[in-house]
């Protein structure tokens, strides 16, 4: 099994009062070990459902989700999650927020080791010195940094992110893209990033998957052929520009299909 994540022919419908609402219809995604997979698509196309599937929080009606050669049927300890809302626990300081997953996954790990691990991560994302602060004392970008640390503190196989930078302003967002890039260089992990931002998908992704409008299927897969140590500047060069162009066109097609079905 080469792929760390293997999603094969997944279909899923939510049961609503107005009858079944299909959200996923033929989803195929393959992500290799330590690859970064960005997923883009029109609003409301079922991207968040995808995160819940990979995390094992729900099971698809049809199709299979494989993680590390094992079929996902229930939550696994080997997943880290980050959302648009950083969902930090307000009654804990930043350090104890980052430690939280270790309390569940590695209950026997000594406190000293947990603290050391969390401190190392916080340093990587530039939050040294904020360990004792409450989440409410931090800016939105800093909270999201802490949330990312919490998502990878237990060294998960997969980091699943659902628009983690969506609520941040542009400059903060670009800062966090670079933090993400540096974090990966030091701490390799496999990642699935759901995003609305095409530039983000190209800057961070090794592959970008375009989903069609609801019900979502895999519409297009773009291999990002940029060097690993890319800078924000690269987004303004020809190669990235062409990729963004292709993605833009694909999104238009995806939206078109969604609109046609809605009529």
């Amino acid at each position, binding site marked *: 099994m080469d792929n760390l994540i293997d999603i094969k022919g997944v279909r899923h419908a939510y049961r609503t009062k107005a009858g079944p609402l299909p959200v996923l219809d033929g989803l195929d995604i393959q992500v290799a070990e330590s690859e970064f997979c960005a997923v883009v698509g029109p609003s409301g196309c079922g991207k968040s459902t995808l995160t819940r599937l990979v995390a094992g929080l729900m099971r698809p009606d049809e199709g299979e989700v494989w993680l590390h050669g094992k079929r996902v049927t229930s939550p696994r300890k080997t997943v880290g999650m980050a959302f648009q809302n950083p*969902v930090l*626990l307000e009654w804990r300081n930043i350090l104890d927020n980052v430690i939280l*997953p270790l309390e569940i996954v590695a209950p026997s790990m000594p406190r000293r080791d947990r603290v050391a691990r969390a401190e190392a991560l916080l340093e990587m994302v530039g939050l040294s010195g904020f360990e004792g602060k409450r989440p409410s004392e931090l800016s939105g970008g800093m909270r999201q940094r802490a949330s990312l640390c919490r998502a990878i503190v237990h060294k998960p196989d997969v980091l699943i992110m659902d628009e983690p930078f969506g609520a941040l302003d542009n400059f903060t967002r670009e800062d966090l893209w670079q933090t993400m890039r540096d974090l990966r260089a030091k701490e390799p992990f496999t990642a699935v990033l759901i995003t609305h931002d095409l530039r983000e998908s190209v800057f961070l992704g090794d592959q970008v998957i375009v989903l069609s409008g609801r019900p979502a299927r895999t519409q297009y897969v773009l291999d990002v052929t940029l060097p690993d140590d890319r800078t924000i500047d690269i987004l303004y060069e020809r190669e990235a520009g062409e990729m963004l162009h292709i993605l833009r066109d694909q999104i238009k097609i995806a939206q078109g299909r969604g609109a046609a079905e809605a009529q």
Partner: protein
Amino acid sequence: MESLQKIGVPIAAILVFLVLWEALVRLNGWPDYVMASPSDLPQAYARFWELFLVGAWQTLWRTVAGLLLAVIVGVLIGMVMGFSRIMRDALYPLLVGFNAIPKATLVPVLALLFIGQHDFNTVMMAFLISFFPIAVSVGIGLSTLEPEYRDILRSLGASRVTIFRKIALPKTLPEFFGALKVSVTLAFIGTNLVEIVSPHGRGLGALFLSGQTNSNYPLMFAVLIALAVLGIALYYAVVFLERVFAGWAERETT
């Protein structure tokens, strides 16, 4: 300076209140069998201080016992309603209806059900009147927990109990203490209700009643003031607990 203001301002306000009260009685020339004035009170306290101590203690422990019962039952009902949609739909109208019943009407019911069990009846009333806000706030706190909070732990394979202990419970604490501040006053009212209404009662309520029977108006007003002091003490005890357990929810005002 700041702490001086914190203590000084409320004390000054109380003094102003007492002066106005005294002035009201004197200017109207009311004798103390119409309305007692603050200057009548020290005499009443001096004469009946033993009764005040015994009564205050009886009122206090029964209120606290009723409140503790309300916390336990209220949190349990709140948990049931917070976690189960069906139970919420089932229990809500019942609870609202029960809460709407004037509790004075339940005094004779309790008195007949548990004849002579005065302590028990009083604690029951304090409990019955005060569990509702706790149940509702805990229920709402739990049912409005953002799903992401749960997902973060659920995706790690955490059990429901762990999720409750690590996330739902602490996150609901501010709402819980908000409700407890309401409940503590209600429980206090419940205790006094039974003490005043039921014959051969005990506590400060009974002392009030005996003041009334003997037309001792200074005693009645002295009891009212003692009740107010006790109520303030109970309220700030809850505020203190809130600071200790849910102090994180307080934002610094800058």
